[in-house]
């Protein structure tokens, strides 16, 4: 394997505490090494910024609802198609890019690892087929557990060991990465057209509350000692006044301590927090409660969050929060797709236009930025757009520009039709903080990697870690003349390495690398009761046989990277 | 050759699956079973009577787009007076409306046809019918 040395760049590495010093980064056999060998190819990074490859902690990029989005939105491909060219297969799609385009666009921005945010277990083969067809970036997928019949039945009786055994079985059967929870209980209620809007609303028939589901899954997660924590999309997404539900949900983590061998310190990751930080009682008096939410997050170290920034684009919303999507189509009357999944979950899809002329959208935009600017610990607050829900992931450089430049934010605020509402309903106008490059590295590299339990592998430039490296055309020694330069620099990296292979040079794809599928193999002691329950449910209630559910052959996961967890206690 | 005086009937033709057609295609479209399953037109007894034909008589079915000889049988999924059913396949596709009206989809269901007795005309086998229509040896 090749040897490289990236010379003389300004290195930002929160793992080693390097804050822009000029340093060399050496690569050998796919890893970062302390010293370059004599034959190492030199990459001159003089005047450039060097960071680890970025880590996407939550995006909807592979699977049945993503693809249904592609199928039902041919208009998303208008003017966005890219031809077959050199190494690149053809691509298309703006808010829902095709899989080849997804891989290329992430790589060109210097992202090297991405997590598919919600995998319906019955459809895991589909998720893995799309992951396999997404070039360059390592990926993992989170199976959803928060509306699962097995989980609800076990947790009703607080059977943590059984819940943990089932979770381990499901992670293995689906080659999944973490315990994801979406609208706990509410999505099962949606199969009858109902919902759970607070953490205490009981689920029809199963008679368990979202609070019990969440706490039970936190316990099961720590019982197993998984690399990532329970990852939650709370109840009541998108409704004015929902910040109280969010605080109730965050408080469920109180008293729990992270137990794992991966350096993870949080027990709950709350995702796309922007959608959950709303005050007011209706769209008229709609206001930001970002401060209330971040005050709590800042004070409670066993929590990590990601922002879910609105990018002011036409995009497509898609989520396992089925009832929310129905609610959204009733609001904006755009086409609605839905799929309830037996015993497990649901998915809903509705296009959405975050228009800068609409005060609500402008306030949503502000809330996403407030969350990041109010975060006291950038290692616990990560930048996302919940792609494609709040905006396409290709807008990350724009979000970074807004966070790093008060001038850019001001320009956008001034451009809003309802600027006065943004200023009165949020506190963004009072925040002049500018995220530094080091903090950016924390919020997009080291922080998400640590939260995912991947701190020893990626998100940093410490020798021994994977050589996932991005070089950007930003010179930290020179003041930024124009905020657009920030966006430009992060849109097309000068050079990107993935596992020690140069994949992007001057913004162009030069290699597909050898992407891996990350998954977690948790071993628990044999649990005959859980196995009997699984057998029974397949025999009676599923529409596929157990043998066919479990079969995930090599052709689906051609290059697996299993993270072993020993939970035999 | 005997000549009958029988009436021509006008019916509305639809095409679709039948279980016999499904079995026949898996058995091989070159075989007689395919013709037996799909080289037929299912007519309501009242239409057969108007036609003046016995069941299982060969008939010629003609539309604006072509004509084909198939065996007329009494429907097993009726009554449906005025409606005729030829299972999906090359016999039906010789005469159904090929126009897609810019949707990409031909109009397999709902083609006005007339049916005449053609007692001495043979019903061709499936592959034979298509090859002949296309001028392929």
């Amino acid at each position, binding site marked *: 394997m090749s040897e490289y040395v990236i010379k003389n760049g300004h290195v930002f590495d929160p793992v080693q505490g390097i804050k822009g010093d000029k340093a060399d980064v050496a690569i050998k056999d796919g890893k970062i090494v302390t010293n370059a060998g004599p034959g190492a190819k030199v990459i001159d990074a003089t005047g450039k910024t060097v960071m680890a490859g970025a880590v996407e902690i939550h995006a909807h990029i592979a699977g*049945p609802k993503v693809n249904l989005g*592609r*199928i039902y939105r041919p208009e998303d491909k208008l003017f966005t*198609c*890219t031809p*077959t060219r*050199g190494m690149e297969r*053809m*691509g*298309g799609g703006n808010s829902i890019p*095709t899989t080849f385009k997804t891989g290329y666009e992430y790589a060109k921005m210097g992202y090297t690892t991405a997590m598919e945010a919600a995998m319906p277990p019955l459809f895991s083969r589909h998720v893995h*087929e*799309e992951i396999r*067809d997404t070039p360059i970036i390592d990926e993992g997928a989170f199976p959803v557990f928060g509306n699962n019949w097995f989980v609800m039945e076990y947790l009703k009786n607080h059977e943590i060991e059984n819940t943990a055994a089932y979770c381990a079985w499901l992670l293995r059967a689906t080659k999944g990465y973490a315990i994801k929870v979406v609208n706990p209980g509410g999505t099962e209620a949606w199969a009858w057209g109902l919902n759970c809007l607070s953490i205490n609303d009981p689920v029809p028939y199963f008679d368990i509350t979202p609070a019990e589901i969440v706490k039970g899954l936190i316990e099961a997660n720590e019982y197993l000692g998984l690399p990532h924590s329970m990852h939650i999309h709370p109840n009541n997404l998108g409704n004015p006044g929902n910040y109280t539900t969010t605080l109730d949900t965050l408080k469920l983590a109180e008293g729990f301590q992270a137990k794992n061998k991966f350096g993870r310190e949080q027990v709950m990751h709350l995702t796309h927090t922007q959608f959950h930080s709303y005050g007011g009682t209706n769209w008229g008096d709609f206001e930001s409660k970002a401060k209330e939410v971040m005050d709590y997050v800042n004070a409670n170290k066993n929590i990590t969050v990601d922002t879910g920034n609105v990018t002011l684009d036409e995009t497509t919303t898609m989520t396992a929060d089925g009832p929310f999507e*129905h609610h959204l189509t009733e609001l904006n009357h755009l*086409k609605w797709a*839905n*799929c*309830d999944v*037996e*015993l497990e979950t649901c998915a809903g899809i509705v296009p959405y236009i975050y228009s800068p002329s609409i005060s609500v959208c402008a306030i949503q935009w502000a809330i996403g930025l407030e969350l990041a600017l109010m975060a006291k610990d950038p290692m616990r607050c990560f930048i996302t757009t919940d792609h494609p829900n709040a905006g396409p992931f290709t807008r990350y450089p724009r979000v970074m520009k807004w966070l790093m430049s008060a001038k850019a934010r001001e320009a956008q605020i001034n451009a809003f039709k309802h600027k006065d509402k943004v200023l009165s309903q949020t506190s963004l106008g009072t925040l002049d903080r500018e995220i530094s490059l080091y903090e950016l590295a924390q919020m997009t590299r080291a922080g998400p990697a640590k939260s995912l339990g991947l701190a020893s592998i990626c998100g940093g430039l410490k020798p021994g870690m994977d050589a996932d490296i991005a070089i950007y055309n930003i010179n930290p020694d020179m003041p930024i003349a124009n905020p657009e330069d920030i966006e430009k620099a992060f849109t097309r990296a000068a050079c990107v390495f993935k596992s020690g292979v140069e994949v992007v040079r001057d913004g162009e794809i030069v290699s597909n690398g050898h992407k891996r599928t990350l998954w977690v193999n948790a071993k628990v002691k044999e649990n005959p009761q859980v196995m009997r329950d699984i057998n029974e449910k397949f025999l*009676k*209630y599923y529409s596929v*046989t157990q043998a066919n559910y479990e*079969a*995930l*052959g090599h*052709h689906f996961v051609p290059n697996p990277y299993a993270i072993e967890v020993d939970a035999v206690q | 050759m005997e000549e009958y005086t029988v009436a021509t009937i006008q019916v*509305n033709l*639809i095409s*679709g*699956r039948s*279980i016999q057609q*499904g*079995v026949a295609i*898996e058995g091989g479209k070159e075989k007689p079973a395919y013709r037996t399953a799909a080289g037929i037109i299912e007519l309501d007894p009242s239409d057969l009577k108007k036609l003046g034909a016995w069941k299982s008589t060969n008939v010629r079915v003609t539309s604006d*787009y072509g004509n084909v000889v198939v065996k007329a049988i009494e429907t097993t*999924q*009726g009554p*449906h007076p005025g409606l005729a059913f030829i299972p*999906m*396949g*090359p016999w039906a*596709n010789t005469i159904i*409306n*090929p126009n897609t009206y*810019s*949707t*990409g989809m*031909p*109009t*397999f*269901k709902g083609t006005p046809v007339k049916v005449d007795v053609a007692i001495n005309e043979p019903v061709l086998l*499936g*592959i034979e019918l*298509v*090859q002949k229509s296309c*001028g*392929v*040896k």
Partner: protein
Amino acid sequence: MTKTVTDVICPFCGTLCDDLEVVVSDDGKQLLEVYNACVIGTEKFLHSQSKDRVTRPRLHQPDGTWKEISYDDAVEYTAQMLAKAKKPLMYGWSSTNCEAQSVGNEIAEMARACCDNTAAVCHGTTLIAVQDIGIPSCTLGEIKNRADRIIFWGCNPAHAHPRHMSRYSIFPRGFFTGKGQMSRKMVVVDPRVTDTAKMADVHLQIEQGRDYELLNALRVALNNEWLPDVVAGIPKEKIREVADMMKSGRFGIIFFGMGVTQSLSKNHNIDEAIALTKHLNEFTKFSIMPMRGHYNVTGSGEVFAWQFGFPYSVDLTRGFARYNPGDTSSVDLLIRGELDAMFTIGSDPGAHFPISAVKHIANLPSVCIDPHLTPTSGVSKLHVPVAFNGVETGGNCYRMDNVPIDCRKVVEPPEGMLTDEQFLIKVRDRLKQLKGAA
């Protein structure tokens, strides 16, 4: 001695039953018996064993005979044909696995072809409607466990999806439907008294081609507004009765088929059916699902969509994907004489396209990949038989509700026969050489 392979997936229709049991000889070469399949699935498995199978590629001769050639020569013919063509069509894909479909896409991209699947003559109009209005749907297990109102509109599962009603939609005792068929009310809308209609609680014997009006009338009935005495041949009292029945359920489903996708109003029918479903969600939980025909047409749509962005009728001739049904769809392309080569796989357009389109296939350089002799192979220049997918080779397939199930290999293919995927890989590699490596 024999052994029984369990959990076998049937590769015929979109029902994609996965509970078959197949008894094979110990050496894995002979398929002896099939259990649990319907008659069509049974025939598919057993016929794969027939002694008269074509096992080698054959080239049509001017005098009407066929000359057997090697797979390598067949690869060469196919690659040359695709390399030389300016606008080839690669059609079918519905009776093969996703792995083969994916290799096919690589070839289509290199050859700058049009590619299309059997949705073109089946549920293509459904896809157009979904692109207009969306689709509230669910998986088949949800029907089994929850549904108490089942509507079959313009489809005849007793004939086309024979085990659908027993596995998912009418008979099963699910979690919330312990009384099985007694828990459910069934409505069939069909111009004929089909074998499915004979089982229904209500059969609306609609005037053929008038589905749009009846769907719309049901929506009017949901709103309790005025109706004419008769709509589409159905009296208004009956329409209101059915509307009330649908509203009064806990979980309803509309299954629909060719009766609405292929009759004159086409995609507008489906649009209205989906609008009705969405409307019903104001009263109770309702979903809608197309009865997909081939066992992996859904898979072809999925693979096209995640790789190219569109589910069928994709035109790659300009080096990027374009989509415009009516313009880029197979039947229109053939009838307008726009193609200069035809590649068919996993389907039979010779039997299922209008004859005016098939005449064009006969006049073009053409290749047909199919284990069977078919009207398509009969008018193509080259016929390449391959192993039966789902019998002699495995591979991923997608059921009508988009659930992916990995088909199994049950027996060995005849000696020396290739699978679709193997043949396509050879064609791809040869085409890459002919086009000059990128």
